[in-house]
């Protein structure tokens, strides 16, 4: 999905991730304008949350989104350079709370914010090859 969204990793640590992106033409909301559909922002944020959670727990374990709330503040055009940030602000047992936003890279204007709850250690094989072998 990262390649679908033209996402480039800027920084990653246990404290959060920063990614640059811009949405391609396939995410246009209207034929008559360059405005990207708001759902593209949610796809980017959900992707970022997963990455940030892996970075926070420092292991590649199966995770699953429990819920996701996105606030759309301003429209964004396809091709506009964007900065996405995401971090885990609480981890209690296997429930992680995430927050993130997407800004116009040139102006810093926040275009969308989101919060989410994730579950770690869900069903599914580990991403680590030969683990347990």
């Amino acid at each position: 999905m990262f390649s679908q969204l033209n996402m480039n990793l800027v920084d990653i640590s246990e404290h959060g991730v920063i990614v640059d992106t811009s949405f391609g033409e396939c995410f246009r909301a209207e034929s008559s304008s360059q405005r990207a559909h708001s759902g593209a922002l949610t796809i980017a944020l959900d992707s970022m949350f997963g990455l940030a959670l892996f970075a926070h727990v420092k292991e590649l374990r199966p995770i699953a989104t429990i819920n996701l709330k996105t606030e759309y503040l301003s429209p964004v055009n396809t091709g506009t350079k964007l900065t996405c940030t995401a971090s885990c602000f609480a981890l209690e047992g296997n429930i992680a709370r995430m927050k993130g936003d997407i800004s116009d890279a040139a102006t810093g204007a926040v275009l969308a914010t989101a919060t989410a709850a994730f579950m770690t250690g869900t069903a599914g094989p580990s991403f680590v090859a030969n683990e347990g072998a």
Partner: protein
Amino acid sequence: MSECAEFKPIDQWLTLDVTKNDDQNIYLMSPTEIHLGDPSIKAIHGGVVALFLERVAEMELSASGKSSTVANIVNTNIDFLRSAKMKPLFGSAQIIRRGRRLAVVDVIAWQDKIDVPVAKATVSFKL
């Protein structure tokens, strides 16, 4: 794609289509590898499910509209109930409230049975 619905460019990426069942619109997406989220369990990306739910809400609101008022999404609340596998995803929506300036639409998505939903959402619009 069905010709009567108002499809947008993003719907082609989403493989979105719509049919009718007893006067209710049933929306469908047929995921491909570009929609893959977790490859280990072959699940659709959560963000793609979210986008599908938003488009179902938009299209249902548009289909019920008496005018060509543009509806902009204010926010979306999504609950992921089960993993959505890489197979057809269905959706339906119910307009909870449509006022002069605001509208709220509830959406569910399912794969095998409508009473076993994989996700549900509430989408709020500014009209």
